[in-house]
């Protein structure tokens, strides 16, 4: 098992009082497999993703990623986990505005010490970014930016790709194209994918789907071919 969550709960303190975002969540993800998290806004999907990435701490329960229990890691340990094991793709792209497309693509792989020029070149071509390498993020369309974000994550060949609404900012046609490309590249790298999405249609393309409602697992479904 690459990812295991056992009885994980998370709450936030808000102006209205305590808000239970996740309650007693148990789930797991095998290496090389993909899992979609769906649910209404506020159901806890993104929070779950952030917990798995080691960006936030659970209030209770255990999260294990690639055999490491995240709760036992300090700030530095969690940073190492994010750098070497996890790759993140966000809805807002979150590219580095001061770096060119080429530098953005290579950034995470170089940070993880896994930069591979050949793989980077192939990836760039597959993503259709080879003509845009010297541009800056703000000079790209939304679809192009998201392709750079995906390329940045996959260039490092992480064991686990965490994607939070990766096509949420794109129109349907562009979103579908980006999605297809991402799934194919994830399969090619052998990474596991945990993706948050509102779209049941996109979720249907992944191996398994878990639907959250008010911080609890409401439904689990396997992909039917």
């Amino acid at each position, binding site marked *: 098992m690459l990812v295991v969550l056992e009885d994980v709960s998370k709450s936030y303190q808000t102006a209205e009082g305590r808000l239970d975002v996740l309650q007693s969540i148990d789930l797991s993800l095998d290496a090389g497999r993909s899992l979609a998290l769906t649910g209404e806004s506020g159901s806890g999907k993104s929070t779950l993703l*952030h917990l798995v*990435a080691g960006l936030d701490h659970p209030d209770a329960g255990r999260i294990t990623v690639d055999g490491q229990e995240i709760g036992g890691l300090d700030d530095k340990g969690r*940073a190492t986990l994010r750098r070497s094991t996890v790759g993140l793709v966000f809805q807002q792209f979150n590219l580095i505005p*001061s*770096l060119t497309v080429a530098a953005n693509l*290579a*950034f995470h792989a170089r940070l993880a010490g896994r930069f591979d020029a050949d793989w980077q070149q192939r990836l760039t071509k597959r993503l259709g970014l080879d003509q845009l390498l010297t541009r800056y993020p703000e000079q790209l369309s939304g679809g192009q930016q998201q392709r750079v974000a995906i390329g940045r994550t996959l260039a490092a060949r992480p064991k686990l790709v965490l994607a939070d609404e990766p096509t949420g900012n794109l129109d349907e046609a562009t979103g579908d194209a980006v999605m297809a490309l991402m799934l194919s590249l994830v399969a090619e790298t052998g990474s596991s994918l945990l993706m948050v999405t509102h779209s049941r249609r996109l979720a249907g393309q992944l191996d398994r789907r878990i639907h959250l409602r008010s911080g609890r697992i409401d439904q689990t479904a396997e992909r039917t071919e």
Partner: protein
Amino acid sequence: MMRRAAMAALLSHWRRRPLQLVMLLLGLSLATALWSGVQAINAEARASYDRAAATLGQDRLDRIVSATGAPITQSAYIALRRAGWLVSPVIEGTLRLGPTRLHLIGIDPLTMPAEGLEADIGRDGDLLAFLTPPGLLYVSAETAERLSGQSLPPLKVTASLLSGIGMTDIGTAQRLLGKPGDISQLIVASEQRQGLPPIEQLAPGLVVKTPDAQGDLARLTDSFHLNLTAFGFLAFAVGLFIVYSAIGLAFEQRRATFRTLRSLGLPATTLTGLLLAELVGFALVAGVAGVLLGYLVGSVLLPGVAATLQGLYGASVPGTLTLRPEWWASGLAIALFGTLAAAAQSLWRVWRMPLLAPAQPRAWARASELGLRLQAVAAIALFATTIVLAVFGSGLVVGFSVLGGLLLGAALLLPVLLAAFLALMQRVTKRPIGEWFWADTRQQLPGLSLALMALLLALSANIGVGTMVSSFRLTFTGWLDQRLAAELYVTARDEAQAADLRGWLAGRVDAVLPIWSVSGEVRGAPAEIFGVADHPTYRNNWPLLASVPDTWDRVAKGTGALINEQLSRRDGLVIGDSLMLPGGWTTTVAGVYSDYGNPLPQVMIGIDALTTHYPDVARLRYGLRLPSDKIDVISEALRERFDLPPENLVDQASLKRRSLDIFEQTFSVTAALNILTLGVAGLAMFASLMTLSTMRLPQLAPIWAMGLTRRQLVLLELARTLVLAAITLLAALPVGLGLAWVLLSVVNVEAFGWKLPMHIFPMDWVRLAALALAASLLSAFIPLRQLAAVAPSDLLRVFANER
């Protein structure tokens, strides 16, 4: 209604960002305070000069003086009166009462025109006492205190005289000064009969001087005040950087609000008008605070300035500040002007802003790349103009223009150099974090460059002025060693005691060197003429800048005179030129000596020539040469034998200490302004870092998400601040040295009449570097602490989809 709603929306920005508001108001208040504080000092000093210039109506009435500087004779006065000229005699001179000097003015109240007489002097029922022995001596309360116990006519305190001046009847003054029958000048009444015979016919050798509204003191001190004004302006400009930065940022952050207001139907003109009204409101609040703060700054600095003016020019300026209404008005006006100048660009942008302008951080940076090119061109043009001015121009205004051009050019060039350096570093760096670090720093540059420019100005001014002061100190100390060669300096109480003293000293010390001088006009300006004994003390030590092999022989024979550098530069006098001295006799320039700290022309002639041409010269002061082990014994014996007060017997070390104290005092105000300017620059840096830090999270969160710890991010941010401050410091070095050169070789020569060699003091730079880095660290401390304490939930908010 619409305007009120829009204004409320605009003002809500400040409620959410109170620190930004505080920075804006603080920057403006400080800028106003430093400017108006300096202006207050200048105004106070100038008011004193005006009072001095108005004494005896010199600013309104014609005066008759001798063309040669010799006293006017009684017979010339009588000839003029008999011919019908309404003139009134005046004698002026310096009365030495031990260490105390009193500028004594003797008048004739019966013939003095009303404009020339202070209201209460000799006209308040004491006229008879004023005119008849022992007479009355009018002085200020401060002077009265200093003169108590001296054998003088009864003192009468008046508020209309400046400190250090005494006014009495002309007969009494002639007696006290030991110049019976002498007249220094004749005051000419404004109303004269028609058809009077011309003055030159009645009294050849006399000339009429027209009223002098400015006065000698005001002219002499002009350069000093210009120096202060320049520093006040520099501090004001540095303060404006904060204001510009705060306004620019507030406008940038409210771009969305502006767009919304415009799309809701608010015309661009109304929006601009509302923003202008908001700024005027801030300017008035900050202006009032600034004027009050300026009063405080002025009050703290004025005693130092007053002591400097007294020490350098003998000008009497009160040590306390008067709050003048025109000063309030000018303080508020400068605050308003500063705000509008700093906001002009932002207001223009709002007025011209397209409704659908998107916010793009890199677009901002790219737009500023074009700006950088323009800045580089402007900086080069400024430098070229500055060089042309420095080479071909002359005068104090040109000197300050060169300073301004150098500073402004350097400030404009700084972001260009920084951008080039950061781009180079990004290219040569191999590690991803390093590459990101340099690229990100380059992106932050537009937001930080104003603060860095302010820091550059403050650091350059510190290096420049520091180098100038330290060079001056080094030269001055060496010069003092040469000039104060005698081991002891003694002043007799009166001529009889002086004669006793000379007799007693003969055989007890190695040499008794007279320090006798007279005052008079040389080439149309007040000057001092000293007599110098023919002695190795002078031949071996005197700091000559220009000489010939027989300089001292010529001086000893009475055929040559030494002049100080100031006189040489002012009138272009060189060795061999002839020089007319008071009394109408002529000698030849035989050498030029350095004479730092003295604003007046000075001439040295042989002691015999002095006593021959000026037989009435006071012979009270002497320099004594003696072995150092005898100093204490002789001092003690002199004190006991002649009952001399401590001030009348000063050893070389004390005199040097006193001179150095005056020197340090002279530059203490400059040093204080320098530190204040650096403080303001530090504040500008803090304001920029603080405001940038609020926009940093979206840029830092992805890096954090990719595996950097918050601690690493904090350290990188710290490194960024230090790198930028260090580069600015490096850039400030050549600018500061250029500044020092201009100050030493152009401004000082124009302002004071002396040129100083430039010395380099690297340890001072190390100290300044430590101070600058400490200031940068301090300014970065709060933003960094905030970043270190930022919760993961705040960083996660950057990734939140439902924003």
